[in-house]
């Protein structure tokens, strides 16, 4: 069978990427080269960049650490209400980010939420709020991705390890974890990339305080609100570059997820 695509098929396949490309190229019509360096090196942009990267990193680490054991338990066990738990994990996919943010905000205005804020940790309108909003938005995806990788690994490997003297934790550590390593890394990067671009839940929970809770997407929104198109374009290009880099890494790693 001939696997070469004809020109019209190539055009059809390339249609959507072409639209994205046109959108990216159109950004350059508003790109002011003089402003580029100025905005990129401004203290406010650098703060937003640093905040976005730091929060995304913390979120990716937290989500992955929480997702690995949950994904493993879901992958290896059958139990009552498993389907309900599975469905609930997809909540962030069906609820809009702003609604999810509003749900978090409402929770922290309940008796229990207030108790947490008063006695444990301030979440609303703080950097903690960014992390909480983004972890809640991404952990479901992380669990689903890691679980799908773990589902592909035959349980026999762990069974053999057990009969060779490894306890359940040792077999998880020496067999399951290394075999799903690339999948976990791919999930980490995807969560990180999604967190970098997360806007709806973040702005609802953490607000828009410059030099405090202003992440890159929020900075773009604020510049657009004040009609600073050139400034917004520079930040958009920055976020695109970071996102594409992360996604390329994700694609590279997920290509060889299973050994």
């Amino acid at each position, binding site marked *: 069978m001939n696997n070469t695509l004809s020109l019209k098929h190539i055009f059809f396949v390339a249609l959507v990427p072409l639209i994205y490309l046109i959108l990216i190229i159109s950004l350059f019509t508003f790109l002011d080269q003089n402003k580029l360096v100025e905005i990129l090196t401004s203290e406010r942009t650098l703060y937003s960049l640093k905040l976005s990267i730091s929060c995304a990193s913390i979120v990716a680490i937290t989500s992955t650490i929480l997702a690995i054991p949950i994904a493993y338990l879901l992958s290896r066990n059958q139990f009552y209400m498993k389907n309900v738990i599975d469905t609930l994990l997809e909540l962030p996919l069906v609820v809009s980010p702003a609604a999810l943010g509003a749900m978090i905000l409402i929770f922290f205005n309940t008796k229990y939420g207030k108790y947490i804020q008063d006695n444990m940790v301030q979440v609303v309108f703080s950097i903690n709020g960014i992390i909480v909003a983004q972890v809640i938005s991404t952990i479901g995806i992380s669990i689903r991705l890691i679980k799908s990788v773990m589902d592909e690994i*035959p349980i026999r490997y762990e069974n*053999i*390890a*057990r009969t*060779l*003297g490894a*306890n359940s934790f040792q077999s998880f550590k020496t067999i399951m974890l290394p*075999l799903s390593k690339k999948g976990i890394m791919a999930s980490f990067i995807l969560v990180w990339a999604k967190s970098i671009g997360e806007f709806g839940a973040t702005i609802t929970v953490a607000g828009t305080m410059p030099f405090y809770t202003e992440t890159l997407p929020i900075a773009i929104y604020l510049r657009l609100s004040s009609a600073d198109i050139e400034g917004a374009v520079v930040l958009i290009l920055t976020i695109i570059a970071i996102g594409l880099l992360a996604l390329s890494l994700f694609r590279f790693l997920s290509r060889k997820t299973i050994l």
Partner: protein
Amino acid sequence: MIDLKNIHYKANNFFLDKINHTFEEKKIHIILGPSGSGKTLLLEIIAGLRTPQNGQIIYHNTDITKLLPEKRNIAYLPQDNVLFPHLNVKENISYALKIKGINNDANSLKITEKLQITPILNRNVQHLSGGEIQRVALARSIIAGSKTLLLDEPTSAFHYSLKNEFLHFLKEIQKDYELTIIMVTHDILGVFSIADYITFLINGKLYQTFNNTEPKFTPTHYEVAKFMGIKNIFEGYISSHDKIICPHLNTAFTIHPTLPDKKNMNIKFGIKPEDIRIILPEKKKNYTNTPNQLKGNIKKIYRHFYHYNLLFVPHNIEYPIEIHFPITKSEKITLYEGKDIEIIIKPNDIFLLI
């Protein structure tokens, strides 16, 4: 010694029922049975990967029914995915040592030498042949200190000649390291050459155990005979202490196994195709007063590697009997479809089936 006492395990619509068996130490036990008969399930129960709903497993006089797999010291080698794919050969065989925190073990060097693994120690496991995979898996289990090995269809992917080679190698290793091996397979070929005991597991039930030091294997159960591919299974009823009437063949058979003292009792019996002899014309006078002779003709002939497979139909009866006739004897008689022949079955060669 492993003692299975009244093991019962139910999984969905399948269950292992009242499994009672003793696996003698330092012997090779083969469990034969068709696919889906519960062989893997039984190994997983012995290995501790599944807990039976009822019954006990006694290992070296200790009840291990609820003991964790890592505490049993019984190695399990499944049918596929035997080796850890992220570790090379050396890392695979030293897995158990690493778990125990042992870095160097002189004994493991001897074992790798003995199992001819030394040249492939640094090889990726994806690049090993079927035989090498099994040898590495064996070495890993022996190095782990397991004296009991559970093998699930280890030769399923082997070519016939490689299968025999591996089985004989396995026998040698078993003797050298005094291992107890419990191997399950659906493949009858080859296993008789290495087994000390052969037990049949069919539809979740254990049937007869055959001690391979006995000169001749004879099925005692209908299910076993069917699994062994014996087509000559007939129904009849007892007419006297040594006679069965078989209405299908319209014949009375004289048999030597002791019959129950119950006249007219319905009974199943079988005859192995290789135990049926064709009476050569020049020797006919030798059989004038011998029982169990049938006249008929050859309906079909199929040539096999070592024998002809004949479908013999007695005169006026449409009930075929399968006969294996050695190719080495084919010069003594010309056989063809439609030829009239006479056959004889020794009373000793008819076996009763439960």
